[in-house]
């Protein structure tokens, strides 16, 4: 294992110390239990937004704490859900009297820990709503599985709901908006290489030099198919077709196209993927009105990408364009 770390067991703490040192204008960091909190939280009268998950997906979630996005993020161990005491502390730290929304990715551990946190927060008279994000079409949604995984739509939901909370919408309105973003988003990812969890020290899965995994999860979970590597245009078709068919996205739709890097893929390749995606959608009469390209929900050093499409309307466009100032995402109005 070759990594820029000191000791595997110190990875999360030292990362948090780095974030605290780099962005004191945006966030403050609480340790044991670990929480990244917006510097000016709690904001009176504003709905608080809390998310969290295993570490190793940076900049998600800690890099999205700041104006117009999250109020707090709970980083777990690498690829392991954070714990209810972290989430309770985060919830208390950002409650400005208007309630707190928990944005939860659909993984069994994340869902159970956030449920316990909501019960604990309820016991302290803080109003909490939770929305579970489950946008990954690689996973069959059925009664016999834990349901679809939460992936790229999480980033979009955090941005859009953050803008709505900033604009003064109520907890139930922000939660409803979050469900709307989730309902109109679909994603799928692929990997060219595995990733290495620092504590494990070896690759999560084996992939031949000439192979790729289509439908990969953000923790290296197996996808739909393993096959020989193909040109970008062909890979984009394999990812985008199931996405478009699932919602479905139809001729005349406006979308936000999010081409995400898994951590080990250079931007030059992501732009090639975006170009192929643009052509693919053009051919179906689907218009890209907004885009996001780069590594935003990563899987350590995994090479590969994911594509997320979100069907847009005027409300979502206006909220997407609203100002955001975080370590991972920032623009002016």
């Amino acid at each position: 294992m070759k990594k820029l770390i000191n000791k595997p067991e110190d990875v999360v703490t030292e990362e948090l110390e780095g974030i605290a040192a780099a962005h004191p204008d945006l966030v403050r960091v609480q340790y044991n239990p670990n929480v990244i909190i917006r510097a000016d939280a709690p904001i009176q009268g504003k709905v608080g937004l809390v998310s969290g998950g295993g570490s190793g997906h940076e900049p998600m979630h800690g890099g999205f704490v700041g104006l117009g996005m999250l109020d707090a993020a709970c980083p777990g161990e690498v690829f392991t859900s954070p714990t209810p005491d972290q989430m309770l502390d985060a919830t208390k730290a950002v409650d400005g009297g208007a309630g707190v929304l928990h944005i939860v990715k659909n993984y069994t551990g994340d869902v159970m820990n956030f449920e316990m946190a909501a019960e604990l927060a309820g016991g302290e008279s803080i109003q909490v709503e939770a929305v579970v994000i489950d946008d990954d079409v690689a996973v069959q949604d059925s009664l016999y599985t834990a349901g679809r995984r939460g992936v790229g739509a999480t980033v979009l939901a955090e941005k859009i709901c953050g803008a709505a909370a900033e604009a003064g919408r109520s907890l139930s309105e922000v939660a409803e908006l979050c469900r709307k973003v989730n309902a109109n988003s679909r994603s799928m990812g692929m990997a060219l290489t595995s990733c290495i969890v620092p504590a494990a020290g070896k690759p999560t899965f084996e992939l031949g030099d000439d192979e790729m995994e289509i439908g990969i999860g953000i923790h290296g979970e197996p996808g739909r198919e393993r096959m020989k590597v193909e040109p970008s245009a062909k890979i984009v078709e394999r990812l985008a077709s199931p996405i478009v068919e699932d919602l479905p996205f139809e001729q005349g739709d406006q979308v936000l196209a999010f081409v995400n890097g898994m951590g080990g893929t250079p931007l030059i390749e992501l732009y090639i993927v975006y170009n192929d995606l643009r052509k693919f959608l053009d051919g179906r009469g689907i218009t890209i009105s907004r885009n996001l390209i780069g590594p935003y929900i990563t899987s350590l050093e995994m090479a590969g990408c994911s594509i997320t499409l979100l069907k847009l309307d005027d409300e979502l466009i206006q909220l997407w364009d609203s100002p955001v100032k975080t370590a991972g995402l920032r623009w002016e109005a």
Partner: protein
Amino acid sequence: MQVSYDDVVRWIRAFAAEIGTNKEQLTELDSAIGDGDHGINMDRGMSAVIGKVDTADQDQDIGALLKTVGMTLVSTVGGAGGPLYGTLFMQMGTALPGKAVIGPDDWTAALDAAVSGVQARGKAEPGDKTMIDALIPARDALKTALVGGASFEDALRRSADAAGQGMRDTIPLVARKGRASYLGERSAGHQDPGATSSHLLLEAAAEAWAA
């Protein structure tokens, strides 16, 4: 036979030691069908528990001790194992309020509460390939043995053996809960890591409390 506060502490220590010894095996089982962190996470949690048990001043209250164990697991394990094992111990603690010693009826009530709590939290049914598949046979075997007139000690042994059988019986099952469920048919042929750690829990009780 009755189980004292110190016996419960010995059981917790024995479980922590079993988790430590079997950390690699649990992680390997979890790597096959899950996300490969069950052994690492449970070991981190039980190490924290041992730290707490060493300094705990619970006035010989077994219920309070088990609640502390549960809370510690919830705040240190993460993943699915944290809420599930945390709930298991917290529910056991709630079922044994203020007890300085426990007998067969108390332990039956504790296991009943543990199973209900874990099912409420994880929403798993028997046959879903989860820790429930070790816990329910263990609880049922305990009751059957006690009703049949077995000694507490003997009933604990049969309970642990039933957990072991339940654990082995998860091998052919197709997972319907947790990350393993994404594998569908591919999850068959692997022993469930949660059922494996639950077997260790009951085996530790049978061994720690054997006269």
